[in-house]
């Protein structure tokens, strides 16, 4: 794992890198870092039973950053020339109001991440295109075999192999290899001129064999087909306030939108979050304990270290209903005087570091999931979702169901069409009255957007009951 071997792969020596850092870390700069990244992404996709598209993209570059007080100077380049480093140094110098010159930074200490959460052989990450093609072909066959009403199957398999290296003015040099892959299946079903879609997918920081374990790829195909067929018979969704039971796994997107973003340190330092000043206060019912954990092996949201070289960890966000902590990067931890949690992330060398979630989930409770459904007389049971969004400042969040059912008289009855659920972040978890013992993490499809930057994340949830939330259907 990452040290001099990787630095060499960027065509650089240690003295060049730390010489550049010295140029950036002028007087009054609190912190500076260089983030080197090299990334190979490959994608194959299938539709109409033909794998007809293949793409490959190679990118390499460096992001140079300096912080002074609350200010950040940032420059990036796809070339590591003297000119580019000068541009970076000038940008950094400007924000620090410091004269130029060369300063020394401490002699580098090499930190290897002490663990490897995704020890994947490069041959497992870079499988031949022919193998990817046969994976997709098998998915097409399986989905169409599920039901003759499946009229089109679209599937894609994407991999990314990212090598990163972070050199900091604190004198650390640390690197990581971050493989990531995802298999996504969408089916279109048609009956009597009516069409519906269903989607399913998953992945993580895993090798190619992951998709074959227990015929996982075929299950993805059947799940996408099942959802499309199910939605053919879906009735209009109800509108208004009602109890909602969320199934385990991906519905954990509730936590990501309702509270996760609101607990990112930048918004709280600036006091623009609906959660500002709520540390130590009750923001959820006492059956809710929620963590952000970047240390789960092989997970899509996991990292050995964040993009500032800090080892990731498990951060208690809400403990039995009480707000315990924010997730931080170096800048915000320093300015707020709170612990560094290893959540400083960036989409690429072209983006600045922001505090971001990793895998965010609620710990299991004690209720029996079936008992939770039986407790609802009239409501919604939602088991799969599309995307969500939140307004950090007023706390209002939405997430949209893609597979949901009516609960009538304590029983799950008819499937309903997708509907958006809307609530208020600091308030919604106080309405969680039951938490199941069936914690499930999602399959590995989540991508979180913030400030125009996308990063892979995970979520998880046991079955829970929310006593009331507004369901945005069309029927009274």
């Amino acid at each position, binding site marked *: 794992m990452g040290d001099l071997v990787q630095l060499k792969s960027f065509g650089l020596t240690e003295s060049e890198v730390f010489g550049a850092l010295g140029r950036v870390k002028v007087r009054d700069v609190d912190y500076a870092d260089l983030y080197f990244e090299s990334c190979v992404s490959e994608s194959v996709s299938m539709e109409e039973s033909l794998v007809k598209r293949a793409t490959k993209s190679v990118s390499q570059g460096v992001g140079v950053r300096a912080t002074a007080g609350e200010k950040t100077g*940032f420059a990036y380049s*796809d070339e590591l020339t003297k000119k580019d480093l000068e541009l970076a140094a000038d940008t950094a110098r400007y924000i620090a109001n410091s004269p130029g010159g060369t300063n020394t930074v401490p002699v580098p200490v090499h930190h290897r991440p002490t663990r490897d959460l995704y020890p994947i052989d490069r041959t497992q990450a870079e499988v031949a295109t022919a193998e990817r*093609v046969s994976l997709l072909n098998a998915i097409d066959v399986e989905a169409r075999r599920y039901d003759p009403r499946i009229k089109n199957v679209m599937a894609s398999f994407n991999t990314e192999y990212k090598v990163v290296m972070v050199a900091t003015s604190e004198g650390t040099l640390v690197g990581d290899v971050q493989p990531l892959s995802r298999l996504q299946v969408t089916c279109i079903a048609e009956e009597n001129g009516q*069409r519906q879609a269903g989607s399913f997918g998953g992945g993580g920081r895993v090798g190619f064999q992951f998709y074959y374990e227990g015929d996982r790829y075929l299950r993805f195909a059947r799940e996408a087909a099942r959802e499309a067929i199910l939605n053919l018979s879906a009735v209009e969704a109800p509108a208004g306030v009602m109890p909602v039971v969320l199934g385990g796994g991906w519905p954990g997107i509730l936590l990501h939108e309702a509270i996760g973003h609101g607990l990112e340190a930048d918004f709280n330092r600036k006091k623009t979050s609906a959660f500002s000043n709520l540390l130590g206060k009750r923001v959820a019912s006492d059956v809710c304990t929620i963590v952000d954990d970047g240390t789960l092996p092989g997970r899509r949201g996991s990292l050995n270290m964040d993009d500032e070289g800090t080892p990731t960890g498990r951060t208690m966000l809400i403990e039995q209903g009480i707000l315990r902590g924010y997730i931080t990067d170096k800048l915000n931890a320093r300015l707020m005087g709170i612990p560094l949690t290893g959540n400083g992330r960036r989409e690429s060398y072209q983006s600045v570091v922001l505090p971001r979630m990793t895998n965010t989930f609620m710990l299991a409770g004690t209720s029996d999931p079936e008992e939770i459904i039986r407790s609802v007389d009239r409501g919604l049971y939602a088991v799969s979702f599309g995307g969500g969004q939140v307004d950090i*400042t*007023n706390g209002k969040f*939405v997430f949209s169901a893609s597979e949901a059912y009516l609960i009538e008289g304590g029983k799950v009855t008819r499937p309903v069409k997708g509907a958006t659920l809307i609530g208020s972040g600091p308030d919604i978890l106080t309405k969680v009255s039951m938490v199941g013992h069936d914690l499930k993490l999602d399959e590995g499809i989540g991508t979180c957007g913030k400030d125009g930057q996308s990063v892979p994340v995970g979520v998880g949830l046991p079955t829970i009951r929310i006593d009331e939330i507004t369901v945005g259907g069309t029927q009274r």
Partner: protein
Amino acid sequence: MNQQIQQRDGYGQLALDLLAKAKRSGATEADIIIADGETFSVQVRLGAVDRLTKAREKRLGLRVFVGKRSASTSTSDFSVESLNHLVGETCTLAKAVVEDQVSGLPVADQMAGEIPDFDLYDSTRLNTEQQIELAKRVEAAAMSTDERVTNSEGGDFDSSSGRVVLGNSHGFLGEYQSSSFSMSVSPIATDPETGAMQRDSWYAVQRKFAKLDSPEAVGLEAARRTVRKLGARKVATQRVPVVLDPEMAGSLMGNLCGAVSGYALYKGASFLAGQLDKPLAPDYVTVYDDGRVVGGLGSRPFDGEGLPTRRTTVVERGVLKSYLLDTYSGRKLGLASTGNASRSVGENPSVGPTNFYLAPGTKTVQDIIKTVKQGLYVTDLIGFGINMVTGDYSRGAAGFWIEGGELAYPVEEITIAGNLKEMFAGIEMIGNDLVFRGRITSPTVKIAEMMVAGN
């Protein structure tokens, strides 16, 4: 032509060299896109510089066809060794996928001939101090007009410029430059009684620096939009008329744009599949996609495949008259490209709008609101609750409750739901307030009725 090419700088020649190399490596057809540019962005928060970002970047994308098989690759490494490797690798990748009968470049005689100048480039360069000053002014204007504005997510000023070089094995070689200047501010207002916060923002974006609104005008509008949200509440669940402000009506046009994209249509993934020449909306609804607006934010002289852009009437007097197509999706549907190939370097072409807009009507926004006894004026929509296959629509909303033809009070934590087909058919009035603030724009739109879910 050769003379002309020799006078170009390296990128045109580079494209020609690589196209020749691709042919030698077994490609029957190929195209290359090279994009480079620089960006400078300043964010100011509470009067002090928060973030400065400067960058230069470049990228090259190669697409090859080996018979009816094709693959695309991209790189930011322009070294001879790396590019030679890329050409070989792309041809190998193409041989690994199956034949696709309709794949290929556009027909040679349809390539753009003249490269028109739509005035997309401004050579104005602002220095660091000037950009910081503009960002400070837009934020200061937002913070100083109303004491309920208590905080800020910051004021931004961004400038960028770049060029695109596109060449293909038909001998087409085109190039254009473009620039963009934008500013925005996101003030936060606090309710003096409850302490509840609201945020909104406003922005200006232009290809020419001189055409930007003043920072003071942008800041003032941002403050107005933010303060008016204070005291927002929920309303009861009910079916009412819904008026979309121009920004939100623009998002509805964005949904239309997605539904008429050739790729969604041939896959059966659009609710408008098979609807060409059928009525979509009342006869006062006309929608254009015009790639040739002088100075337009979505204008370009040729599309991502080198075909000339054009003005397409998408909806004419309520009837769906045209899809938006590139060569591939057009061939799948048995239609000609509409010059809407959109190309991000390294991806296969897809379909994208140029300047896509709903033609304005004659009513003022006040006239439109006046016609609503009880209803909703929407200024914010959040979430992704749109099923493009069926048109089912359900999104989080905020805005104002309309009572007796006037905006009565702000509302939030509600949803609006319906089906896009019914929403387009239900367009009752169109405002006269069209302003080109982006690539997809609209005036105010009134929809006859939607379900509002709240209490």
